[in-house]
């Protein structure tokens, strides 16, 4: 082996080791995050966290029951506003859409997906908070709802497209008109995939903080109804993490663990279900 070949071979080895190192570094970040949150959050979490209201500033103890309920309410509102638009838009793209309009719609959806979350917050602020003149659960839910639209559209469209044409043709051949074929055959065939996509979508907005800062704002007490500011887990993590109190930091870790646990669990389950679904559709 001459010198030149040796050089080329060593470059080959060195460069691929470096890329391997880059991969290891990137992957290890997740384990680092998980490790830290389980370590600090696990020590901080207790029953009070789930059942008690926050204590007044300066007292230790208390929990984030109101923030957990607040997050659930916000996500419920977001689902009610964002999913119908996204789902129907996706049905349009997969079943009815023409060429140019569909391309434009897909492009707009992608752009909407890339809008920074803080800008979505401003949008909900100008649409709801300004006319109502106060922060509310409604405004926060709307901000999250708009953020849910793009992924709901894309996952609905994608899964409707995985339904075999023969299934549609079968329904049409039996005399069903198009909308009947879609609602009774195509959508039921794709519904598991679509729902999984929407759950992933939900997991994504569940961790959003920026759009809630000046829409749902925050609240140290229960927030009855939909018309008042409400606490939510992500905003609580933010407020508690930057506060100067030791006990608040402890609770921020606990909240972080709960939020991350929920988000990752949903993601892993949904992705496994999707992978199995896709491989069974292919095979």
């Amino acid at each position, binding site marked *: 082996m001459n010198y030149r070949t040796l050089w*080329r071979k060593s470059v*080959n080895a060195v*460069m691929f080791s470096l*890329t*391997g*190192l*880059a*991969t290891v570094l*990137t*992957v290890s970040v*997740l384990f680092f*995050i998980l490790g*830290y949150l389980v370590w600090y959050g696990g020590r901080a979490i207790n029953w009070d966290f789930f059942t008690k209201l926050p204590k007044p500033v300066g007292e230790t103890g208390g929990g984030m029951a109101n923030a957990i309920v607040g997050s659930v309410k916000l996500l419920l509102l977001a689902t009610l506003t964002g999913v*119908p*638009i996204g789902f*129907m*838009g996706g049905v*349009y793209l997969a079943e*009815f859409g023409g060429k140019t309009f569909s391309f434009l*719609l897909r*492009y*707009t959806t*992608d*752009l*909407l997906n*890339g*809008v*920074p*979350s*803080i*800008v979505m*917050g401003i*949008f909900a602020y*100008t*649409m709801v908070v*300004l006319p109502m003149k106060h922060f509310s659960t409604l405004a926060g839910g709307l901000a999250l709802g*708009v953020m849910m*639209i793009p992924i709901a559209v894309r996952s609905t469209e994608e899964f409707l497209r995985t339904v075999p044409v023969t299934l549609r043709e079968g329904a049409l051949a039996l005399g069903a*008109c*198009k*909308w009947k074929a879609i609602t009774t055959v195509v959508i039921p065939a794709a519904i598991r995939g679509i729902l999984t996509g929407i759950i992933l979508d939900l997991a*994504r907005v569940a*961790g959003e*903080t*920026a759009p809630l*800062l*000046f829409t749902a*704002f925050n609240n140290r007490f229960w927030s009855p109804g939909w018309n008042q500011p409400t606490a939510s887990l*992500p905003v609580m*993590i*933010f407020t508690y*993490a*930057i506060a100067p109190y030791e006990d608040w930091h402890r609770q*921020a870790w606990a909240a*972080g663990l709960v*939020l*991350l646990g929920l*988000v*990752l669990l949903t*993601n892993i389950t949904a992705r496994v279900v999707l992978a199995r679904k896709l491989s069974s559709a292919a095979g």
Partner: protein
Amino acid sequence: MASTAVAVGGAPRPGRVRAFLLRLRSGDEIAHLITLIFASAIFLVTVLLVFELYRNSALAREKFGWQFFYSRTWDPVFEQFGALPFIFGTVVTSAVGLLMAVPLGVGAAIFLAEMAPARVSDALTFVIELLAAVPSVIYGLLAIFTLVPLLRTTVQPFLKRTLGFLPLFQGPAYGVGLLAAGLILAIMIVPFIVSISREVLLAVPVEQREAALALGATRWESTWKVVVPYARAGILGSIFLAMARALGETMAVTMVIGNDPKISSSLFAPGYSIAAVIANEFTEATGDLYVHALIELGLVLFILTIVLNGLARLLILATHRKGTAHP
């Protein structure tokens, strides 16, 4: 469809009208219309978003004009608003983030697409995509309690000793600052670069690799001189996408950037970004002009990210087209 509806009134073409009525009775046209309305709602939301940002920043736009972008005073008390410190902070932190994330992300993507066996590659990509799902406030939380102390006690003193002659690494080591924000951004955007770059690399036809290898290239040479150039546009697209993320990233940056609207040459110094100032000051903003100035910042951020995203999508689309054009 609309023209046929008009034709019902005039009724000159009975055949088409009957066909239309038949479809209407069976409900297809109605279903089409309903889904079309919802689909149009997506356009409406997007247009409304732009309109609201534009309308609600009118006061600031009229008062400051272009000066808004190069004035460096941000003084809510005297109602003087200049965005330069925030633009500076956003650009610098994103640049630092990209500088670290691009080699790391592209490197990992190359490994996953070219070297790793398919199953290992899929498993690792799964983990990396989970990273993209971690909420940004969690990154912020971790950064405050791990990254910032580490920077303050170890990394920054070390950089000062070794590279302290550069203006970039001077001044007191606070921990929080532009460097911390850039680092956390790097960690947050790597998953985007990896997952999209890997996809475009995998879309490169296998013949390209085989041809290079047959000519006697080593694996690395075939990757670096043939596959990567082939996927160049798509990789660039993934970088643009990551850049758009970095520019708009709010929570993690807000928590570690130091929140001080100053322009300084050192990366150790605290700074402020566009997204961070909106997050911090929006609820405290008193007076319409203040709010409008903040919304104008939001408009700037929106336009920046839209342009970057638009470009990125086109680039990625172009590579995929090219990749599939040679089966």
